[in-house]
């Protein structure tokens, strides 16, 4: 099992290397002058020239890239050109918030998608099936940022059930923390949950029509036992494959929705840095999100392996 994870991590190294090259090369060609954005427009040409030499902007790109690579493997992402803070410190604060939001919305996706999908399939063509299918059909096309605005307008401000924005740290208690996360997480989770619910339903229906289920029924086993014991595990396979992809959408969703709910997460960091042309921060955030995404996908593969013994045995 450890070998499986080690091998998957090893396989992602070339991709990771490619990611660093892409990020570095693209930002190299980006408009704007790092020295200028650091010193501001009133800097004298001499000051700019000195800073450029300090930043080694006159060296060839591969030299700078190799040095940058050497720094980032030691988790040194440099210093923000604007706030002069360490990029790793900035990312450390905001990554935790984005990951909390992503994780809570992932839990919501699973809590919504599996029960609705399974009930829909088992009680096919019932009222609850119809309702869940209508909701998932509409939900799948729901833009997360619009849903977030609707939640704020009608639930947070209109009904006053949840705070309309602002992140509450878990130090202040589990309840307030969760309350601050519910609306943002639900806006992110709606579309992926709808897609997954449809997939679970289709997969469950497919499995329930298999011969071995008919055999189990013929043996006189109770329906609940058949669904939970025989059908569920096999019907998990297809939906599992899209969960990994959905994590990307959840992280992306978190980055947009954070901005709406005034969460100081990666989204706000990336956006502000992008607008200020604070490239060391942009580099750091882009790289860390890619790494997080890759790691999560390894984790999903691992879970997939736990469910499917065929993959486990070949690994």
């Amino acid at each position, binding site marked *: 099992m450890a070998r499986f994870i080690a091998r998957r991590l090893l396989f992602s190294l*070339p*991709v*990771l290397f*490619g*990611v660093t090259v*892409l*990020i570095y090369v*693209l*930002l190299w*060609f*980006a*408009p*704007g002058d790092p020295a200028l954005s650091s010193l501001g427009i009133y800097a004298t040409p001499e000051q700019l020239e000195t800073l450029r030499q300090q930043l080694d902007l006159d060296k060839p790109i591969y030299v700078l890239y190799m040095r940058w690579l050497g720094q980032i493997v030691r988790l040194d992402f440099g210093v923000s050109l604007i706030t002069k803070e360490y990029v790793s410190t900035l990312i450390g604060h905001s990554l935790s918030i984005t990951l909390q939001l992503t994780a809570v919305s992932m839990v919501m996706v699973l809590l919504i998608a599996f029960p609705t999908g399974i009930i829909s399939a088992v009680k*096919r*063509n019932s009222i609850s099936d119809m309702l869940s299918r209508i909701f998932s*059909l*509409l939900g*799948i*096309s*729901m*833009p997360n*940022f*619009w849903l977030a*605005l*609707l939640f*704020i*307008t*009608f639930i947070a*401000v*209109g009904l006053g059930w949840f705070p*309309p924005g602002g992140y509450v740290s878990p130090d202040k208690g589990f309840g307030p923390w969760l309350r601050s996360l519910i609306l943002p997480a639900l806006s992110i989770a709606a579309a992926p949950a709808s897609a997954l619910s*449809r997939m679970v*339903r*289709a997969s469950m*229906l*497919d499995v329930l*029509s298999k011969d071995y289920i008919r055999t189990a029924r013929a043996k006189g086993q109770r329906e609940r036992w058949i669904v939970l014991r025989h059908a569920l595990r096999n019907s998990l396979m297809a939906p599992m494959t899209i969960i990994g992809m959905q994590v*990307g*959408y959840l*992280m*992306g*969703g978190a*980055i*947009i929705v954070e*901005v*709406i709910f005034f969460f100081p997460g990666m989204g706000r960091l*990336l*956006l502000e*840095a*992008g*607008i200020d*042309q604070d490239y060391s921060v*942009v580099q750091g*955030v*882009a790289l860390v*999100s*890619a790494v997080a*995404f*890759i790691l999560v996908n390894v984790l999903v593969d691992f879970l997939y392996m736990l469910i499917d013994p065929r993959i486990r045995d070949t690994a």
Partner: protein
Amino acid sequence: MHRFWWLRNDPLALIGLIVLAILALSAVFAAQIAPFDPTEQHLSDVLKPPDEIYRFGTDQFGRDILSRVIHGTQISLGLGSLAVILAVAAGTTIGLAAGYIGGRVDEFIMRVIDIFFAFPPIVLAIFLMATLGPSLLNVVIVVALVTIPQFTRIARSVAISERNQDYVLAARAMGASTASVLRRHLLVNAFPPLAVQVTVLLADAILIEASLSFLGIGVRPPTPTWGGILSAGRDYVFTGFWWFTVFPGLAIFLAVFSLNVLGDGLRDFIDPTTRPRGAGK
């Protein structure tokens, strides 16, 4: 017309097509349909709720939100379509070539594609916008770049499954060049799965453009875009000006929804085996 008969048995896809047609028409005839100029300010009618004159209400400058939403259709559908056309052209060429040629070329191309897949799509889009700088053309380029990998993967899988088929081998034996095999034989086979993907990815493209404009790094104001109107309306959600965000968002939702159901219908039509069993149709 017989090609569209399948729509008769698929009411949802038909609805999707009709909504899409309405949106496309309002994009083309925006100037004729819209009751006001989308940038015309009525400073005595600022933040008015919907009434007979302003059906969707007005924004913080007294501009008619209905007119802005109608004109926004041009950017959302137009820019999205342009990006997807670019992405289809590039992605299909790269994917077919990679799958057909195989070997190191394929290996190299797929590793590059993997790099693009290593980012959450919106992070990649924000990152690319930050490097390219905001402009209309750059939004098109970024949305195309984010969608190219998907088309590449599909085209590649078609090329791989077809490249050793007899008809391809026969064409090669008769001296057909690589370019000609790709164009005359593989492209035809790639067409059906790509058509499905075009509808789905056009929905994605519209969402990405709207997200970027919403975040203020896409299409710049005063150009009316759905994401842009939402972005301006964001400041007013805490004070109950609901029409400012409800209507532009509804437009995005309708566009994405109609493309999604149309894509589902197309997929079922092209390959009935992928239809979820007992889908109740």
